[in-house]
């Protein structure tokens, strides 16, 4: 039995990457040339995506009058917005807070934003299904400029472009390094790495990070109001857009955990990605799980305490009658199971435990988006003063499932295709970590020193 087991368990110190700089570039190059399983994954998700396209065409052929049939389509966009497009927020927040743990995983998470291409494309037909905003409460207050298609396209487009900008900008030095290591100096010619270039890169990354955060908040605000709240007469809940975004951030953390685990496992990046980023994200995930409850409770309690008929009708639609069962299952997966598991310290500090929690949250969030969007799209008369009749539950058909699976697969496919263009590992950030963090002897043990240049 090893000595000092107690010390080893309780005196964990932050991981220090000790890979030689040349090896970092070699690993980056290797990640851009993925092997056999990659081809299979592309084929699998490509096939599912095609099925989704078929589903979309079938749904379109049925017309847009029956709005309830488009609920799963909108829920798919909301799911992508709350998972793939929320995961980069973890990296972006880590960058703005100058957290060192983000370095080996920042690129893999920022690349999730590219899946926004799918949500941008999907929002075009989805917005056309929405009834006119004139004559009912909406963000546009009967303005002639109140065209949901335009505003949703603008805000989702801005989010996608901010993500694309982040990936493009941060990948420039890496691509130059990889190409130079292969003997192609044309990339290095474009990026010789002058002091000015580095300064522009760092400033640009900070600005784009801040812009991404703002666009994320804006996207949830506009999308959730247009596609959910404004379709339910009598539902005037100021907290709802923020709640939609907070749910998304919780699922964004879950997506980040899943992406980190997959990249670590299939990219063979154990030397770079230790348990530290999982531990860091799990703390954030616990905080967001608590916030999930707080935001939902604040909304529920205010409406329930008000007890006006319009509030009770909204509560019945969302939490009571038709979707009660779905809400209970969702609550279990998105809140109760993650909350209990994340309270356990060994779970937070393990990769496997975090992955289980992440899967639970993602499943719960999927049910949440289905519940919200099905309920909103099922309302027949959106021009009423209040919800006079609570519609029954919407039961999905095969086409809905095809659309849901196809949309999510499309997002995964975009990510997989981008892997060949950009190293999954942010090489320059990792090489910075090699310079800025060290293990030093400290009394009778070792300690990790992290340099703070700013």
């Amino acid at each position, binding site marked *: 039995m090893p000595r000092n087991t107690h010390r080893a368990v309780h005196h964990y*110190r*932050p991981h220090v990457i000790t890979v030689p700089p040349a090896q970092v570039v070699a690993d980056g190059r290797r990640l851009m040339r993925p092997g056999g399983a990659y081809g299979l994954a592309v084929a699998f998700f490509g096939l599912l995506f095609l099925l989704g396209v078929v589903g979309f065409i079938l749904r379109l052929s049925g017309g847009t009058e029956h709005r309830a049939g488009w609920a799963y389509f909108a829920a798919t966009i909301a799911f992508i917005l709350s998972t793939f497009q929320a995961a980069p927020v973890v990296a972006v927040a880590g960058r703005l807070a100058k957290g060192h743990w983000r370095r080996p995983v920042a690129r893999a998470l920022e690349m999730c934003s590219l899946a926004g291409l799918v949500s941008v494309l999907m929002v075009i037909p989805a917005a056309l299904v929405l009834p006119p905003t004139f004559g009912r*409460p*909406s*963000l546009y*207050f009967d303005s002639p400029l109140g065209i949901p298609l335009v505003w949703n396209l603008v805000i989702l487009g801005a989010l996608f472009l901010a993500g694309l900008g982040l990936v493009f900008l941060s990948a420039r030095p890496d691509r130059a390094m990889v190409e130079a290591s292969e003997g192609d100096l044309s990339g290095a010619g474009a990026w010789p790495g002058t002091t000015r270039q580095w300064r522009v890169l760092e400033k640009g990354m900070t600005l784009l990070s801040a812009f991404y955060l703002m666009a994320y*908040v804006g996207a949830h*605000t506009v999308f959730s109001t247009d596609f959910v709240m404004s379709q339910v007469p009598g539902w*005037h*809940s*100021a*907290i*709802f*857009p*923020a709640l939609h975004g907070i749910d998304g951030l919780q699922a964004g953390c879950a997506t980040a955990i899943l992406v980190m685990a997959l990249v670590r496992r299939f990219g063979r990046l154990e030397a770079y990605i230790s348990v530290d980023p999982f531990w860091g994200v799990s*703390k954030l995930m616990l905080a967001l799980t*608590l916030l999930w409850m*707080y*935001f939902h409770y*604040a*909304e529920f*309690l*205010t*409406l329930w*305490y*008000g007890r*006006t008929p319009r509030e009770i009708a909204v509560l019945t639609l969302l939490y009571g009658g038709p979707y009660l069962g779905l809400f209970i299952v969702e609550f279990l997966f998105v809140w109760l199971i993650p909350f209990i598991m994340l309270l356990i310290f060994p779970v937070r500090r393990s990769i496997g435990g975090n992955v289980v929690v992440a899967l639970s949250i993602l499943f719960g969030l999927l049910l949440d988006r289905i519940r919200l969007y099905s309920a909103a799209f099922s309302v027949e008369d959106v021009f009423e003063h209040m919800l006079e009749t609570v519609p029954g539950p919407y039961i999905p058909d095969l086409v809905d499932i095809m659309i849901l699976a196809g949309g999510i697969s499309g997002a995964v496919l975009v990510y997989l295709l981008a892997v060949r263009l950009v190293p999954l590992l942010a090489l320059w950030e990792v090489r910075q970590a090699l*310079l*800025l*963090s*060290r293990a*030093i002897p*400290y009394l009778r043990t070792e*300690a*990790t*020193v*992290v*340099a*703070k*240049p*700013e």
Partner: protein
Amino acid sequence: MQERPVLSDRQINRELLDFVLHTPIWFWGVLMLLGLVFGAGFVAVVYLIATGVGVWGENWPVMWAFEITNFVFWVGISHAGVMISAILRLTQAEWRRPVTRAAEVLTVFALATAALHPAVHVGRFWRVIYWVFPYDFFRGIWPNVRSPLIWDPSAIFTYLTGSSLFIYSVLIPDLAVARDRSTGWRRTFYGILALGWRGNPRQWRLQTLAGILLSGLILPVFVSVHSIVSFDFAMALVPGWHSTVFAPYFVIGAVWSGVAAVATLMAILRFMFKLHNYIRPDHFDALGRLLLVVGNAWFYFFLLDFIFGLYAREETEVKIWQARIFEWPFNALFVIFLLTAYILPVPLLMMRSVRRSVTMMFLTSVLINIGMWLERYILIVPALQYKQVLQFSWSTYQPQLPEWGLVIGSFGLVALGVFLFAKIFPIIPIYEQKESQVFAAEVKVGKVTVPGVIRE
């Protein structure tokens, strides 16, 4: 690049205990000044009790005005301490070290001051005892659990107890230092409070554990307190108040004003006690960055409240927003509120030169709190003025001298509390400063030496 002066343990002890163990002549001047400010409030309260709440400008239906505005303001300020101390402690942010204690002390005195307001507001504060506590079991007379007079004391006293315990548990090592460096009654006083602290490994382990546990436990309480205060408003069916976003909007607003108040306090402490070695531009820079994030988040929630207040286009709700924005005197106050709470401070905080200037941070943080006080006033009074549908029951509100006295006096009370605390206990945690010296390290990167920190 961070500035980091190398300080010996002896120097840290001497500088941080100087004001505690010696009384400079200016202490009495400041004490008298703060006593006078507090006295104004005291006289106002005595006059109110002797005469009755008719001396205030409140008139039905505006029965909540200056006092409740001030109550919400001080509960808001109290959110700084735990937010900074607990969150930064849990995230191991190095820059927290000189800031935590002042923030925690501000929490306790702001909260105690806030708690006085509802009691004073009822006019005959001794009656609160049987509104809050069950006093006659046999006749089945129970407090109304649906009343804010139950909710607020429950929340505030839980938070006050937790915060006081939090301060005390992290103060113990410093009390022992004060005990070992004082004589006479002071030695006995600090000795009793230090609970036999010797600084052995077990004591340190327990103290660290207590700090972490209390940090984790106090955070939900901190969120719940201002949420409950917001429920005083949101649960009522008063247009302009009955909003689902009020709970997080109040909490984030509280953090915005509270962190700004900590920046103000840090600037004053640095000037007053010559703490230049401990409270450095680095710390103001970090506070500024935190303020920048919180300020933008607060503005988002303000926009949600504004947009969704108008969203349904209900007549009374629209009328209230019209009053807030277009009617005298609220229009002028609204402009000042927007300028001071967001439009001026946020762009200022975006400038590194401002964040690193103690004077500018002091001014910016004062601006924020002017704006946040007005925010609460604008939120409360116009909504009550027009809460009735029939016009004959509309009313106006004009604050009277005793109300001004109460508001000014409350600032005096909090300032006096913090000042006296700083006289009796070290306002900068001594052991935290020593720990920061131990954790300081350097990393050679090429020809450059970069300051670093040992990570636990």
